[in-house]
């Protein structure tokens, strides 16, 4: 369409000498920070540190290992809290590698002045979520920072799970022809949190979709299908998840916009604030890349699982335009679903 000879990749991190909010948005700035600053710093000790979840071998076992820091504000929101989010999020990162999650750790960074009652509600939510997910919280740590050096409770969970032999679920396995599946509707978590965000408060019935997805993954694996990629579209939403997969596997993705399940409450909130629902975070959804001949079986298995009742096919992995995600619009045009840059901002225009 456009001649782009002479195109050069912009120098990463150029002209941004300090951390800004966008580095935490889960989009291009986050990815650049990891790729061009953190991982190079690790040198030989890193290498695979870009991964959301590592699959490693230890003591003869095939383990999945992951970590995530949770700094969500507010800490309590419709449908959940930072506590169940931190448990489910780490369970899901393990599940996206096809692992059976077993053990979690939890490290708290508490701001002076945080009500202990809030901390109690959070640990109770963690316990309930862990029990529901069948994992155990086996180790932890607690630090306190001064008032104005934190914000209530920050919570980092890490998780260990076991990956069965033969299971190889990785972004780089996305292949042209794969069916792209989603396990349910989009944007509930992000809208629920935004609705309680200071300065933006609005009334909505949308609640977070936070849920543990390893049971759903087990059901998908039980079909015998060769799952190529699984991904939980959290920060940066479906847009970030698909762009990352496309970039990693050097494939294109074509979505059919009409098939993208955006619930009314999410669409309405996004309209009001000028947000793109595809960039809004989910905490109980997964996107799967599956061989086309196995897609129907996998979809059927997903729909039979409580956390996959809304599963559907949303697109196809293609060889064309590698690294790029494109949606066919309802009118029959196409638009590029680009990688979010920093974090989402309400728009007036």
């Amino acid at each position, binding site marked *: 369409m456009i001649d782009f000879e002479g195109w050069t990749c912009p120098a990463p991190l150029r002209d941004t000498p300090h951390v800004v909010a966008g580095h935490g948005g889960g989009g291009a700035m986050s990815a650049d920070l990891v790729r061009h600053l953190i991982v190079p710093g690790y040198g030989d000790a890193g290498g695979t540190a870009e991964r959301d979840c590592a699959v490693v071998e230890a003591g003869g076992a095939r383990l999945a290992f992951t970590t995530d820091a949770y700094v969500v504000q507010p800490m309590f929101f419709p449908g959940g809290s930072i506590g169940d989010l931190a448990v489910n999020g780490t369970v899901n990162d393990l599940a996206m590698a096809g692992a059976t999650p077993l053990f979690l750790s939890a490290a708290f960074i508490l701001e002076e002045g945080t009500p202990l009652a809030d901390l109690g509600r959070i640990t109770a939510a963690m316990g309930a979520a862990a029990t529901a997910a069948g994992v155990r919280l086996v180790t932890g740590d607690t630090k306190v920072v001064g008032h104005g050096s934190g914000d209530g409770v920050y919570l980092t969970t890490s998780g260990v799970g076991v990956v069965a032999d033969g299971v190889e679920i990785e972004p780089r396995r996305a292949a042209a022809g794969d069916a792209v599946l989603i396990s349910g509707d989009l944007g509930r978590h992000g809208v629920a949190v935004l*609705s309680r965000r200071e300065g933006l408060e*609005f*009334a*909505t*019935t*949308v609640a977070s979709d936070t849920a543990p997805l390893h049971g759903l993954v087990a059901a998908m694996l039980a079909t015998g299908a060769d799952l190529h990629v699984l991904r939980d579209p959290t920060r940066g939403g479906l847009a970030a998840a698909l762009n990352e997969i496309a970039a990693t596997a050097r494939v294109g993705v074509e979505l059919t916009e009409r098939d993208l399940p955006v619930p*009314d*409450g999410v*669409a*309405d*909130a996004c*309209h*009001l604030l*000028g947000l793109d629902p595809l960039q809004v975070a989910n905490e109980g959804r997964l996107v799967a890349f599956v061989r086309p001949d196995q897609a129907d079986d996998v979809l059927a298995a997903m729909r039979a699982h409580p956390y996959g009742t809304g599963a559907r096919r949303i697109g196809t992995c293609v060889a064309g335009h590698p690294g790029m995600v494109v949606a066919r619009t309802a009118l029959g045009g196409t638009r590029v679903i680009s990688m979010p840059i920093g974090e989402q901002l309400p*728009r*007036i*225009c």
Partner: protein
Amino acid sequence: MCLAVPGRVVRVTVVDGTPMAEVDFGGVRKDVCLHYVPDAAPGEYLIVHVGFAIQRLDEESARRTLDEFTRLGLLEEEFGEVP
């Protein structure tokens, strides 16, 4: 410019001498300033921009526009499809 969306008035009140409304946008609700559409009544639709109603939405006119589009489409069918 100017992301503005239609919403339905649920309830009207006065705050600090300014008429305000709770407006429903398909389930999402926000408080909206009615200073510029002071006689808006519950059930009416308003065009809302950055927390302000800037205009009433004329439902009758909306219906007529849509009817017109439909009519044009039917006419066109009579004359055959274009490439």
